[in-house]
């Protein structure tokens, strides 16, 4: 009996979030002059965005597999699914993200820094001045102007502590579905002391220690979210924070970390109807549009 329970436990992947795709039903791509695609192959997730004359027509958000070129293809196919648009209709395709050099159909690659600033400018509006992107294994803080042009940036990719993948490992360890981590971290009586290390390896040891001491799962989650918020803050502190503040990437969906971070910097984050994970791919798609328009869309 005990073994059977264990087997069921193993089947549930607490870290997994749902993949999605979307298309704009009101936009007729047949009428568009320039169709561009942006593909963001990150360390944990991959997104593809199809832009028709600078408007988002369709997008997909998936998990990156072990094969980057394959992940890029899958993301693009998933975005095109149900749109009747053939892949050959895409005039220009830009790859971005950690695996940008491994996007086989890309005509050009652009760094995720430039793409996130441009994408945030589109999905949050041009009032954005500071963009924080917390991705799967790195963290970027970007200051940009009203056109989405980067004016100051900093990227921390030396260590994955305090990033999305760390949160996934943690959710799995505590058997809490990743999407519930944020809310459950507030179901506590008193805010606990943050864990001393956000390092994924040490955090696991620390979490196990706290659980053995008798802490509730929610309290451990709160302690970890708070530590992540502090770590992210130490990074953005260097480039300076200016209003308006927007967060992109998967961590923007975790209220446990974001609310605590906002309490530290005493600001309200901007809201958007778009999926925050697609910002990089949106930026890439829009850059493609600008480059083609300017006649610089060299193949």
């Amino acid at each position, binding site marked *: 009996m005990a073994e059977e329970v264990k087997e069921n436990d193993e089947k549930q992947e607490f870290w997994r979030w749902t993949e999605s795709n979307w298309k704009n039903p009101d936009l007729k791509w047949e009428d568009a002059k320039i169709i561009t695609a942006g593909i963001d192959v990150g360390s944990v997730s991959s997104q593809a965005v199809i832009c028709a004359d600078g408007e988002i027509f369709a997008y997909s958000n998936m998990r990156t597999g072990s094969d980057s070129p394959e992940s890029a293809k899958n993301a693009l196919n998933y975005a095109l699914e149900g749109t009747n648009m053939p892949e050959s209709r895409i005039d220009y395709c830009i790859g971005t993200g950690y695996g940008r050099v491994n996007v086989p159909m890309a005509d050009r690659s652009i760094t995720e820094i*430039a793409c996130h600033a441009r994408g945030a400018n589109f999905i949050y509006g041009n009032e954005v001045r500071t963009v924080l992107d917390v991705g799967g294994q790195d963290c970027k803080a970007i200051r940009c102007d009203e056109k989405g042009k980067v*004016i100051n*940036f*900093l990227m921390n990719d030396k260590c994955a502590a305090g990033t999305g993948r760390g949160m996934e490992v943690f959710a799995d360890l505590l058997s809490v579905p990743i999407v519930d981590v944020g809310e459950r971290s507030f179901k506590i009586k008193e805010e606990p002391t943050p864990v001393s290390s956000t390092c994924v390896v040490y955090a696991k040891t620390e979490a196990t220690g706290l659980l053995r001491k008798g802490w509730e799962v929610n309290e451990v989650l709160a302690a970890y979210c708070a530590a992540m918020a502090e770590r992210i803050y130490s990074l953005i502190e260097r480039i300076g924070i200016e209003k308006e503040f927007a967060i992109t990437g998967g961590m923007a969906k975790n209220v446990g970390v974001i609310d605590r971070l906002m309490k530290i910097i005493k600001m309200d984050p901007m809201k958007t109807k778009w999926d925050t994970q697609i910002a990089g791919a949106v930026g890439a798609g829009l*850059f493609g549009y600008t480059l083609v328009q*300017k006649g610089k869309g060299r193949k």
Partner: protein
Amino acid sequence: MKGCDLILANYGYKDGSGEYFITIDTDKCDGCGKCVEACPGKVLEVGEDQNDPLNENEVAFVTEAERKKIKYTCGPCKPASNRPELPCVTACEPNAIEHSW
């Protein structure tokens, strides 16, 4: 007219021992490449502006491989006592390079 007179690219990292960043003002940098020649550690490189695809001028940046270890590569230019001017900073005529440590 330019919208902003500072375009800063920070390359480096922060770890338990301190902050190690090389900041290049890509608005001032004219891509002359003198810093590349001056640097004994081959930390710098000149090429297409990776963070502004619409900028046509070439700029200096810290090579991808060095970004995560500049604390060590730049070490020989930064003795603990009697520290001379850094060769990259001295070589840069428009004063576009700055070190945080």
